[in-house]
Every structure is written in C-alpha cells, then in structure tokens.
C-alpha cells in the first residue's frame, strides 16, 4: 500500500496521508465516473480489476521470484474452465460460488506445482520457453478436448455460466432502490472485484515483508548465495509458482462467472504476454508497479479504441488500424521501449522486505551481546 501511495505523482511524497485518501476515493468513485461515459466503461473497469489480479499474481512469479513464466494465462484458463464445468448447463452441475472458488484456486495451484516441478532447475530463457509451451499445451487441450469425449466443448467454449451468487445475492441482477434508483450489476461486480484486489494487495504486501518475501528476493538476486544461507530454492520456486497460479485461478473463476462464457480464444499466448507487459511496464517486482501497469494497459487500449477509430475515419476516411491491432501495437511497443529505456518500469520503487523501522531506538546504548546463543 505504501508503495502505491508513494507512486501518486506530486502528492505521494509530500503528503502520503492525503495521497492514500485520494487513492481510496478514486477507487470507490471510479465506476461512477466511468458510468458517465457509458455503461461499457464500467465493464471495462471490471476487466481492468481482473487484469490487476493477474498482474499481481504474475508479479509474484516474475518480479519476486525471478521466474519468467510465459504461459501464465494457463492458470487463468484453469480457473475459468473449472468454474464453467461446475456452474453451467454444460455438465449440468451448479455448485455454489463459495465451493467453486476454492476448487478453482486449488486446481490452479496444483497446475502450478505440476508445471513448476520439472522446470525448476532450468535457466531463465529455457524456463520461459517451456512455460510458454505449457500455456500452449493447455490451450490446445482446451481447443481439442471435445472429441471423442466432449469435455471442454472445443472452440465454441462453454456459455451460460452461472453468475456470481454470494449466499443468495446474485451479482448479475441490478438492485432496485425505491422507485428510480438502480444499482447496476456492473457496479456490484466492480466492488466485489475491488474487494478481491484489495485482499490480494494486502496478502502480497504481507508476503513481501516476510521471511518468504525475503527468501524470494534473495533467490532472485543471487541464487547461489541464497542456497548458501540455507534457503531451499526449489521449494521457494514451487511456492512462487503455486501462489502465482492461485491468483490466476481465482481471477479466472471470477472471469468465467462475470463474462458468462469461456472459450480457448481468451487464453492465448497474446494474453500471457499482455499480462507480462503490464508487469514489466509498471515495474517488475513491486506491487504498485503491477497495479498501475495493469490499470494503464487495460484501460489505454480501450480509450484508444474509442478515440482512434473515429479519428482515423475523419483523417483517412476509413480505419487503418483496428482496435485489436492498436492494442497489440501498444503492448509490443510498451514492452520494447520499457526494456530499452526504463527497465525498472514506470514505478521503479524499491520493494521493502522488512517493516519500517526507526533506527534511533536501536542506536541507544544497548550492551554488546553475544553472537552465539
């Protein structure tokens, strides 16, 4: 949280408390502001929150533990398809949300461990390619497991997925208050996702300032030295994979329920790379970076889409670059330029791995103690 606060331009350093309130205010008011521009913008915000969760999870793997996972989106797929299997007419199973969510998370974590186990000792670039292969394998299976036994319904995907139902409260239904006041379901989803993202941030913040966070940082910095002080790097890597995968899986389950429909298309390599770009753009290894990166790179293509299409119409008479292409262009340029010009990311905050201390009280005249206990 502190890093996020410090990242606020101008205000962050001068008055952190005010910056903190600003962030809270913006977070709460955002959907209302977006609503003014049209309903679809609130939807876009909801997706941005999902991307934030993905970026946070990938940041764990890439930024904290230093493992370049290019197949990250596979965990998103696992979560989404789990939800689709267990809450849709496809198998005609309709488990409640609070049952499916942990299941989705567990399956994703399992997938993370299964992937992590064999690839742990590979060096950086090989790890990247193998994880990419894993992501592709998952996608290929999703695409083709409709014959001879129809499990995933192939390229058509699974639709009519149950919406999120919190103990009877269906988030896909608008809430009527009185005669003329309606809270749209997109708002409900927004705050639910916001809560999830906030919980994630708190969890990751705590991880960072813990022995686990320090072990990851050590491992990322110098793996040999980390082993030399007793850190079991294999287990730490597995843990990073599993946790990162869990975030992906949870986000995936939320995605499945929210969109109501999943298909292999949503889980392509391009999506893995998009999430990676968000992490890189924001700043690898720090929490604020992942949040900001996801926010900017989820929103910007949509803004461009709204602006660029009519702009091209007026300038050229027809659309040269359609929104999809614009998004890809934006992401690839962001990735390249960041690495060349500002590899630390937009928010190059140094992550803290211990609680904020004031040195003064330790510099008092405490007697020299023994080294051995």
């Amino acid at each position: 949280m502190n890093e996020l606060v410090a990242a606020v331009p101008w205000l962050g350093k001068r008055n952190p408390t005010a910056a903190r309130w600003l962030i809270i205010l913006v977070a709460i008011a955002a959907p209302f502001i977006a609503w003014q521009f049209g309903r679809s913008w609130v939807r876009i915000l909801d997706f941005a929150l999902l991307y934030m969760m993905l970026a946070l999870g990938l940041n764990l793997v890439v930024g904290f533990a230093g493992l370049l996972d290019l197949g990250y989106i596979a965990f998103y797929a696992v979560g989404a398809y789990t939800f689709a299997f267990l809450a849709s007419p496809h198998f005609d199973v309709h488990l409640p949300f609070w049952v499916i969510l942990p299941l989705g998370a567990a399956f994703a974590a399992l997938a993370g461990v299964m992937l992590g186990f064999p690839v742990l000792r590979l060096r950086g670039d090989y790890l990247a390619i193998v994880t990419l292969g894993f992501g592709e394998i998952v996608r290929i299976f999703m695409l083709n497991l409709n014959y001879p036994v129809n499990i995933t319904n192939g390229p058509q995907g699974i639709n009519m997925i149950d919406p999120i139902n919190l103990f009877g409260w269906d988030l896909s239904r608008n809430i009527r208050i009185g005669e003329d006041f309606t809270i749209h379901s997109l708002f409900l989803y927004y705050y639910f996702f916001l809560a999830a993202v906030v919980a994630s941030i708190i969890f990751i913040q705590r991880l960072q300032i813990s022995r686990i966070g320090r072990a990851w940082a050590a491992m990322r910095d110098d793996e040999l030295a980390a082993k030399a002080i007793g850190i079991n790097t294999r287990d730490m890597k597995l843990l990073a994979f599993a946790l990162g995968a869990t975030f992906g899986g949870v986000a995936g389950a939320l995605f499945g329920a929210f969109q109501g429909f999943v298909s292999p298309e949503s889980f392509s390599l391009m999506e893995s790379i998009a999430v990676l770009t968000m992490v890189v753009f924001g700043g690898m290894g720090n929490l604020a970076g992942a949040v900001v990166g996801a926010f900017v790179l989820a929103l910007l293509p949509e803004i461009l889409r709204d602006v660029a299409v009519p702009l091209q119409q007026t300038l050229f008479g027809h659309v040269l670059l359609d929104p999809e292409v614009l998004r890809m262009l934006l992401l690839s340029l962001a990735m390249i330029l960041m690495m060349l010009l500002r590899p630390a990311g937009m928010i190059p905050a140094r992550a803290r791995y211990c609680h904020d201390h004031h040195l003064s009280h330790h510099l008092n005249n405490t007697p020299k103690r023994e080294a051995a206990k």
Partner: protein
Amino acid sequence: MITLLEARNIGKRFGGLQALSDVSLTIRKGEVYGLIGPNGAGKTTFFNVLTGAYTPDGGEFVFNGSELPSGKPHKVVGRGIARTFQNIRLFRDLTALENVMAGHHIRTRAGIWGVLTQNRFTREEERLTTERAYELLRYVGIERFADVVSKNLSYGDQRRLEIARALATEPQLLALDEPAAGMNATETGQLKQLIQQIRNDGITVMLIEHDVKLVMGLCDRVAVLDFGSKIAEDVPAVVQKDEAVIAAYLGGGKHAN
C-alpha cells in the same frame, strides 16, 4: 578436544583436472582453523564440496558425528555450517538489514498461513528476526548502515555484512573464504579481532587466507593444500618451517604485507 568436522579422503575432479585428491583433515570445536596454499591448490573447491555446492567424487564429511549430505547446500547450512564467498556474494539490491534477516530464514518457520493471517507466532518470529539482525549488524560494527542498500556499502563493510549474514544462520562452523582480501592493515586487524570474538562466543571458524601474517597470528591450527593434496596440518609455528610447505610457496603465493 571435541572433533567438530572430519573430512575423510575427499576427492573431486573436473574433467581431466584432479582438484582435490584424498584430502583428510580434522577441525576441533572452538578452534580457528586455517586452510592455506598457493593459488589453485583447491582451497575454494574444498569449501564448495564441504558446503554442498559440488558433490565429491570420493570421501565424505562427518560433522558432529554424522555424515553431511552432499550436493545440497541448504541442508548443510541447516546442519550448522555457514560460509562466505571469495568475491562477496551479497544480495545487492537488499539493504544490509534485509541481507542479515534473509540469513535467519533457515532458523524460522512461519509459512504461508502465518503470513496471511499475521498470527502471533509469525509476528513474534518476525520481531525476533529483526532484533537478531540488528544485533548482528552491531556485532560486526555496521549497524548505522542497516537501511543502506548493500551494493552501496564500502568494500570492507560489505565483507563484514557477509559475515553477519552467515552468523544469522546460527552456525556451529563458520567458513570464511579469503575474508581479508583487499583489506589494508587496519582493516585486517579489525577483522582479526572480530574472528577472535566469534570464536570466543563459541563458534568454530575455518578460513581460507593468503595473508600469512593473519593466518599465523590468528589460527590455532593450519592445513596446507598444494595441487589438491594436503601436505601439512599442524600448529602454525610448525607448518611455517615445514620443508614441503616452503617448497610449495616458493615461486607462488603472497606474503605478509
């Protein structure tokens, strides 16, 4: 005189090169033990085999009565042997405090659940680790740099930090690889005092060093390696006069500055 570490017939080859052949030595609890020899004699290789960075091709280590696992560095640390590196391997982007706290990892147990819930056990452990880290920084004399990112520390302070980090693993045997390299006479004197203090506080120390004066003044016993074999093992006064040792060093090795 309790034996802490016994090396039995340690052998290690790299392709055609026999880096260590049949090296056996004993280190007694509470002593400061030196490992010296000309460049390329195999001293760092010995450290690497001991701490599990390499697997030996022959022989084994017996530590505190039981055999050390080979090839598993983190397990060796768990058993109580910590090391520093010849060319300093700190976690450069972490602060001095964080480096030392990382060293305490292996003696703590808080897991994911504890981190998530911040239960009492986890918070207590974290507090303990922080306290201990400050203590150790104070012990080696760099407490005022606790929040400095370690790559910004001076060379001498970095060496001291590495020792503090190794001490955080609560070792019984501290293995230092050329801790005095690059230090001037004053710094070397301070290092000597630190090592003596460490020994007085109950930790056995083994060090590789080229600084002959330091070794002779500090070590209780010394072993000499040459071309991968041990050619002498005794108190410094005796080793200094050993003919084979003199022959090995003539034409190589550094002398006291």
